[in-house]
């Protein structure tokens, strides 16, 4: 995590866009309210320091996971509307990943559940979790150790498709499997 003090440049940029003669209202001493006898106000407490968030993912160490001819390069399980059950068509895919994880007990997997965009973001986050949990449970039943698996949700926040259409929504009702190094 890096801390960068961009406050002044952001304000300057905003002012350039707005009004070149406008001064910086954020500097200077506090406004004091003398009529109420109260202590000086917190208008200068309004300074905000910018933080830039960075991630550290740099890819998996296993080439077979990236080989497009290998089933292990396929990572997505799609779900029906309002459904949290892994469909039979994904059984070979889930089995292949289970086999890889059993053979590589030090490798971990994060399963990210996703939903379409309709409704509350936080409720969708909880629904996405149910999809990730369904994939995790299927892998567990195939012998993968609990300690290798983490199911999480991205809710509606990371759609693979952004049109407001049924075909797009169905692409977003999905569980994605990520390996160590990819998250």
């Amino acid at each position, binding site marked *: *995590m890096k*801390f960068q*003090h961009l406050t002044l440049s*952001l*304000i300057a*940029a*905003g002012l350039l*866009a*707005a*009004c070149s*003669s*406008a*001064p910086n*209202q*954020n500097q*200077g*001493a506090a*406004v*004091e*309210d*003398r*009529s*109420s006898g*109260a*202590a000086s*106000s*917190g*208008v200068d*407490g*309004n*300074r*905000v*320091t*910018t*933080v*830039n*968030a*960075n*991630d550290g993912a740099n890819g998996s160490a296993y080439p077979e996971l990236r080989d497009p001819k290998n089933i292990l390069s396929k990572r997505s399980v799609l779900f029906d509307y309002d459904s949290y059950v892994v469909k039979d068509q994904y059984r070979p895919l889930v089995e292949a990943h289970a086999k890889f994880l059993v053979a590589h007990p030090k490798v971990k997997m994060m399963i*990210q559940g996703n939903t379409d965009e309709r*409704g*509350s*973001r*936080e*409720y969708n*986050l*909880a*629904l996405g*979790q*149910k999809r990730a*949990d369904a994939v995790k449970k299927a892998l567990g039943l195939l012998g993968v150790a609990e300690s290798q698996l*983490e199911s*999480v*949700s*991205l*809710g509606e*926040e*990371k759609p693979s498709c952004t049109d*407001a259409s049924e075909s797009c929504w169905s692409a977003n009702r999905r569980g994605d499997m990520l390996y160590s190094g990819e*998250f």
Partner: protein
Amino acid sequence: MTSRLLSLLRSAIPACALVLASSLAQAQLAIEITGAGANRMPVAVASFEGENALPRAVTDVVRADLERSGLFKMIELGPSPMGASGPVDYARVRSRGADAVAVGTVSPNGAGRFQIEVRLHDAAKQLGLGSQAMVMSPNQYRATGHRIADFIYEKLTGEPGVFSTRIAYVLKSGPRYELQIADADGSNAQTALASKEPIISPAWSPDGSRLAYVSFEAKKPVVYVHNLATGQRNVAANFKGSNSAPAWSPDGRRLAVVLTKDGQSQLYSVNADGSGVQRLASSSGIDTEPAWSPDGMIYFTSDRGGSPQIYRVPAGGGDAQRVTFEGGYNVSPRPSPDGKSLVYVSRNGGRFQVTMLDLASRQTQILTDSSKDESPSFAPNGRMVLYATEIGGRGVLAAVSADGRVKQRLSVQSGDVREPAWGPQPRN
């Protein structure tokens, strides 16, 4: 005068298309008033004596604030200033139709600072309603104007104003997410966090110094607490699985959060530093979106009964009680600051709309005519509700009065704005 204004407000009907043109553009949130009470109280803010020594007129800020509230009709008095100490020219004020007038004097106070004195008068009764004196540096004309508007608003309505408050929201521009803080009028936007991954659910600490939020920068939802002035932040919840939906306790010590460490999404509480995790409620379904009420209840969304509905549970533990019964989708509850009503999002024939529930009478009212409303939050005086919606495929913020009459829209020229949270009153 207070009771008169309140009765006017009660009898008001929606009137449309009062547009406040903002000279600010681009990155700034521009506010447009899309509905106001028809019987707005006529108020004049005279130009203050000596305010031309400031970089910009403080009274411009005051007038814009009062106009934007939808409760007042601003009466022009012309450019000649009216000072705080001299006699008020009531004839001039009454001839323009104003029921109240604010007058003021700005005078140098040494060391580059200014003294500003404001007096508010009832123009009909020719009575003083109160005065306010402040010391300011010239570049604080905007903050000073908000405080004068708060003073006038409170004197005329009997309720505290919210012009000095701030709002938080998430701006998405292309692949970049920014958690921004702006003044309640949309000006002075500053970025608290910039990330390539989503940021959701910002929640203000009761003292306004910190925000809790969910960031996906670790490829999973993690709850952070972020000090706005210093940029210092700490992880408040990063358990195995998902961590989300932070809500501050009224004393600012604990956060209600949603964790999946033990299975499905369930309610827990943690200290703001991440220690002391405790279970708050248990169910066989999803429990999420907790919100603390001032009377010690936690409202939340649960699908334990089959569809997502709003429930509440005592913060100290106890049985959960169902709160919403109409319709098949009621989510995102936020209790009003006085605890008497609840705002939430209901689905009505495929439209998601901000809805108000009076907890005593059980009466509900849909407050908006939009269809993709999300994330409502009350202004600290309970008068307005800020929420996210979509217009022309773009995310915008909007605000509606608790009675549904006053409507505002806040948008930026490019990018999606979402996940608003109205901050608390600044501590004086």
